[in-house]
């Protein structure tokens, strides 16, 4: 086996510098680092590192349970945790040694000062010893058999090393009270020197490997025995539980992530366990006796763990809680989790400590938060959590001791309480909308998929332990299928193990379980569809298999509309040679097929047809897929287009509704858009000089008149503002119906100078006013039943009356009074007066006709006196009479 000392040391240093100093300040209890020592001695130098190593090599006062070599020993009582925190205090500054036991500090003395008698070291982990003990760097994780840990090599590349069990547990000395080392350091040094001298020369690498293998076998055999004894029982037990990681180093999830979580939890230590002499804070709200020393080192008081199911989020949280000396208090979806109960539960958990067994502080784990966050209940739950978390912050700002005391005493003022226990919330979807407030307030850690190789190594380990033969290929397929979901992998493995003793690829393929039914995000799906570069996955499971897998994924993905829109858009970006366009045509054809199926299922309501959509999609993507990873953007052309089309349609519809009913009856939206509108717009591009109306020549006047009549009839006018920049006719008409006839690349509608537009608009206004004035009177006249005498005379008089009203309107216009009033609210009064006017006019006309007197020009009155909100308009004297 290759063994590089430098690498080893480097790795170790990295370990230490990357946060282990805090994580592992509890010294390991196991003795014996033979390998490590040899190596150190082989260097022929004894520097600080060696001292450190020696310190480790010495047997520690034994922990509470020496019977369980694999399990962590946990602190037994409060005093223990205090001692531990005291350690942390001393070793806290980064300058001082990597571990608390650095040579600069006299461990004995320091510990003696602070630790109370009878205290024992805690959180001592076998793993620490293990990892420091046997570090063998490999770049290929598969080459190592046995438990591995991921690290980073000197040059930054990820590497793996084997974790080895110690050869045998050395007899432990009884704990010396108040001492960390059983013997003085000088003695240790001398001993170590001697040891290394002897052993380094004698043992060879070959021997070492042999021994290691032997050990492993032994270990498995040991574990088998209880299994045989309780075979009945183990059959019942789920492997997922049986092989749940027990220690920090057994976690398969990304190490960096694990450390982040650990860091965060450790940051609570000063608060929870007290800080150098300070008493630890208890739960919520109560300030410890020495308030001054309380310093909240944690900014974000909530940790939000997120990641897809089966990656071990819950396990991670539990393991770390255990590792750091907390008791995990889990609140999950099976509990009642409305805001009220949640608050009670959390405050209970935080306030109290378990009376039985070890008295450890609680660490609250709220599992499946995204499940809680649905509906109004959920919102209250989330806000409760948020209140708890943020109340502390406000408090800190206020920082009033009296306040705190008051809060502790008076129950109603619960809001002011401060949180002194860590809370870990776990969710699948970090970006669930309901979680947004939490996301802002919390430190969020995302769990990623573990490396397939590590998962496989673990699976292999399990297989060996369970006496099952499993092909590597089979396991690979298993991991690939379950998308590195450890839980589902192990479950499937157990299921398969019931059937056969030798698991082959065919078995895994045959089983339909183990496939995850998780919906993927649209982007991921597109990526997957459009990229042929299928890791080693596609190669292993074969093209056909891959296709059927994809088919399933596609069927799970609900939004086929979005899927198609995306693919349609990505077709444009994809680069492929297609000389005769055959491939493109075929692809377009597949898109069509998919669309037709989608339509058919929608139209007939037979959603069974929907399942044929993925087939076409798959056919399309096999042609479209490229080996490199495509760069995708969210497809928005189609939706933009749809929105714009709807807007245009609405515009057109609105315009049509404003038209005179007589015109409208003969129009439909289609004919308006296709035929009427283009022609209409051509009509309103007159060739008129920009001069005053009075100076226009006859043809221009004629043009002006046609345009004005056209614009009045079809109810539109010119937009009066400035044109947009770069000659872009942003707004041309009002309503903007010209937009429907503008195409990119074609010359748009002509832009008229402002003065001309102004002139035309003015004319249009006048014209429309004229019509408004004339229409009602005309219609009243017309609607009068021609009952009494349908003779010639009355017809004449009617005509006269109409003429009269016209002239009135024209005069009013001429007076310029009405230019401002384009719209007039018609009220019942109006109708009344108008009717009266009309009848009077008719009467008058009749009288005149009878008397034969010539019609007098009407008299106009205008009043300017006083102020009134009433509608002001010119009135004829005769109307009032």
């Amino acid at each position: 086996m290759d063994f590089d000392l430098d690498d080893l040391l480097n790795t170790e240093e990295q370990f230490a510098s990357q946060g282990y100093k805090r994580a592992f300040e509890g010294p390991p209890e196991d003795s014996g680092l033979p390998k490590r020592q040899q190596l150190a001695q082989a260097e022929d130098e004894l520097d600080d590192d060696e001292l450190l190593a020696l310190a480790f090599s010495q047997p520690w006062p034994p922990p509470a349970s020496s019977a369980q070599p694999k399990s962590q020993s946990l602190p037994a009582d409060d005093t223990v945790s205090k001692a531990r925190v005291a350690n942390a205090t001393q070793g806290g500054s980064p300058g001082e040694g990597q571990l608390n036991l650095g040579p600069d500090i006299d461990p004995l003395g320091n510990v003696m000062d602070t630790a109370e008698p009878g205290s024992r070291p805690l959180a001592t982990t076998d793993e620490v010893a293990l990892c420091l003990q046997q570090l063998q760097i490999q770049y290929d994780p598969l080459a190592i058999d046995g438990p591995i840990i991921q690290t980073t090599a000197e040059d930054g590349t990820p590497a793996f090393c084997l974790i080895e069990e110690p050869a045998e547990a050395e007899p432990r000395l009884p704990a010396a009270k108040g001492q960390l080392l059983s013997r003085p350091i000088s003695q240790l040094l001398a001993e170590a020197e001697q040891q290394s001298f002897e052993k380094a020369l004698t043992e060879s690498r070959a021997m070492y490997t042999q021994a290691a293998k032997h050990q492993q076998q032994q270990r498995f055999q040991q574990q088998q025995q209880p299994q045989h004894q309780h075979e009945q029982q183990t059959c019942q037990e789920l492997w997922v539980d049986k092989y749940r990681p027990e220690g920090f180093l057994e976690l398969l999830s990304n190490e960096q992530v694990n450390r982040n979580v650990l860091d965060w939890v450790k940051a609570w230590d000063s608060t929870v366990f007290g800080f150098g002499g300070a008493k630890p804070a208890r739960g919520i709200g109560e300030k410890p006796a020495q308030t001054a020393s309380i310093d909240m080192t944690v900014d974000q008081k909530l940790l939000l763990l997120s990641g897809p199911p089966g990656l071990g989020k819950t396990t991670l949280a539990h393991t770390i809680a255990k590792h750091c000396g907390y008791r995990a208090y889990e609140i999950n979806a099976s509990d009642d989790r409305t805001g009220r109960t949640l608050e009670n539960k959390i405050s209970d958990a935080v306030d109290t400590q378990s009376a039985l067994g070890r008295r450890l502080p609680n660490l609250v784990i709220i599992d499946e938060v995204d499940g809680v966050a649905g509906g109004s209940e959920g919102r209250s739950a989330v806000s409760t959590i948020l209140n708890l978390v943020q109340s502390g912050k406000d408090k800190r700002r206020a920082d009033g001791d009296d306040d705190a005391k008051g809060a502790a005493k008076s129950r109603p003022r619960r809001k002011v309480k401060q949180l002194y226990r860590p809370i870990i919330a776990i969710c699948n979807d970090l970006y669930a909308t309901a979680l947004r407030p939490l996301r802002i307030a919390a430190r969020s850690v995302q769990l990623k998929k573990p490396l397939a190789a590590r998962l496989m190594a673990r699976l292999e380990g399990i297989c060996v332990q369970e006496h099952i033969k499993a092909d590597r290929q089979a396991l690979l397929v298993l991991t690939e299928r379950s998308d590195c979901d450890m839980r589902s992998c192990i479950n499937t493995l157990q299921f398969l193990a019931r059937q056969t003793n030798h698991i082959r690829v065919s078995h895994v393929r045959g089983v339909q379980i183990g496939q995850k039914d998780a919906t993927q995000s649209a982007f991921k799906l597109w990526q997957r569809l459009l990229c042929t570069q299928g890791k080693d996955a596609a190669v292993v499971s074969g093209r056909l298999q891959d296709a059927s897998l994809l088919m399933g994924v596609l069927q799970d993905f609900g939004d086929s509309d979005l899927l198609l829109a995306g693919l349609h858009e990505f077709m444009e970006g994809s680069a492929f040679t297609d000389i005769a366009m055959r491939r493109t045509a075929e692809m377009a054809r597949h898109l069509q097929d998919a669309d037709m199926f989608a339509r058919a299922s929608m139209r007939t309501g037979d959603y069974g047809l929907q399942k044929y959509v993925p087939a076409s999609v798959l056919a399309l993507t096999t042609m479209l897929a490229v080996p490199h990873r495509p760069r995708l953007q969210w497809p928005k052309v189609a939706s933009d287009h749809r929105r714009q089309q709807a807007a245009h349609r609405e515009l057109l519809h609105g315009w049509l509704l404003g038209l005179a009913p007589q015109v409208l009856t003969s129009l439909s939206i289609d004919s308006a858009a296709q035929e009427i509108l283009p022609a209409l717009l051509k009509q309103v591009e007159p060739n008129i000089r920009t001069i005053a109306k009075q100076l226009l020549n006859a043809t221009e006047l004629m043009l002006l008149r046609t345009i004005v009549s056209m614009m009045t009839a079809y109810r539109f006018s010119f937009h009066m503002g400035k044109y947009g920049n770069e000659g872009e006719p942003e707004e041309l008409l009002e309503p903007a119906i010209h937009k429907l006839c503008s195409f990119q690349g074609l010359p748009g509608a002509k832009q008229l100078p402002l003065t001309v537009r102004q002139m035309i608009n003015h004319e249009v206004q006048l014209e429309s006013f004229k019509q408004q004035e004339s229409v009602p009177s005309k219609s009243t006249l017309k609607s009068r039943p021609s009952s009494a005498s349908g003779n010639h005379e009355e017809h004449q008089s009617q005509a006269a009356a109409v003429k009269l009203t016209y002239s009135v309107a024209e005069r009013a216009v001429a007076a310029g009074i009405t230019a401002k009033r384009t719209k007039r609210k018609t009220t019942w009064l109006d109708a009344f007066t108008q009717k009266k006017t009309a009848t009077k006019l008719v009467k008058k006309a009749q009288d005149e006709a009878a008397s034969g007197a010539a019609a007098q020009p009407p008299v106009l009155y205008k009043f300017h006196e006083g102020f009134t909100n009433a509608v002001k308009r010119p009135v004829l004297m005769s109307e009032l009479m």
Partner: protein
Amino acid sequence: MLWVDKYRPRRLQTLILNKHIGEHLTQLVATGDCPHILFYGSPGVGKKTLVIGLLHQIYGDGVEKIRVETKPWKIQLPSRNLEVELTTLSSNYHVEMNPSDVGNNDRHVVQEIIKDMAKSRPLDIQGQRSFKVLVLNEVDRLSKDAQHSLRRTMEKYSSACRLILICNNVSKVIDPVRSRCLCIRVAAPSQKDIMQMCQHVAGKEGLKLPEGLNTRIAAASDRNLRRALLMLETCQAAKYPFSDDQPVQLTDWELYIQEIASDILGEQSPKRLFVVRGKLYELLTNCIPPELILRRLMLELVKKLDDELKHQAAQLAAFYEHRLQEGQKHIFHLEAFVAKFMSEYKNWALSAFG
């Protein structure tokens, strides 16, 4: 007003085109009653004009007092409450609407709103007709469901209501509905008819329309009278007095389709296809129906194609138009046509020129 509206005949007696239909209709309603009527024919042949004339013939002047209403209708469905907004044009005697505007909910419109309207009798004012008329536009766009629900309404409430249905494509109206109606086909005017009409309108406007221009307008109008008259008016706006060789102006979207056609024939590559896609999107955005785009595009392509390919292009267009009807995303189908055509054309070009 545009000439199309200005010179639209408002009485059956004043019709120039479709005079014979007008006479028939006059006779039909002379007895005081009329059956359900279905008018069909391509756009711009005078279906609406006939309906206006017919309504006037039945009810007299009162029918021309029209009001436009857009109001939300609340429809109670077993599972939910549906609210649709529908625009109606109505007089005291008739109601006109476009039920296909509401899209997928058209069935409910027919079942609830139309039934509701059909049920109520008109107030009998001064011995007018005892029935009212419902004018439904674009019946061929109604879904099959909606058409089926129309069947029963037509029979059950025939004592109080007559339906006048208007559509372009009679084969999209289900048989039972057709059999309940008197189907009147309004034929497209011949080129001669169109020339005559143009001459008539020009005469009324006091314009002198040269024969050559008239012929070309008629030829370009697709036997669509509305189109022809609008073209005439556009020509007049562009240049008057007319000259014999004056170009007939096409509408913008037609020019745009011409551009697309030349794009397609200019280069056949995926890249060009995506250029065309953008242009197709633009056409669709501007409310040009996809069927029309496809048809027009095919016609433009055929103009410039070799004889060998002409029938193929037409066949392709027909095939893809069918698929277009079956699908819901128009762009997919239009693009598929373009892609397939490009492929065929390229093949042909490669084999013909090597």
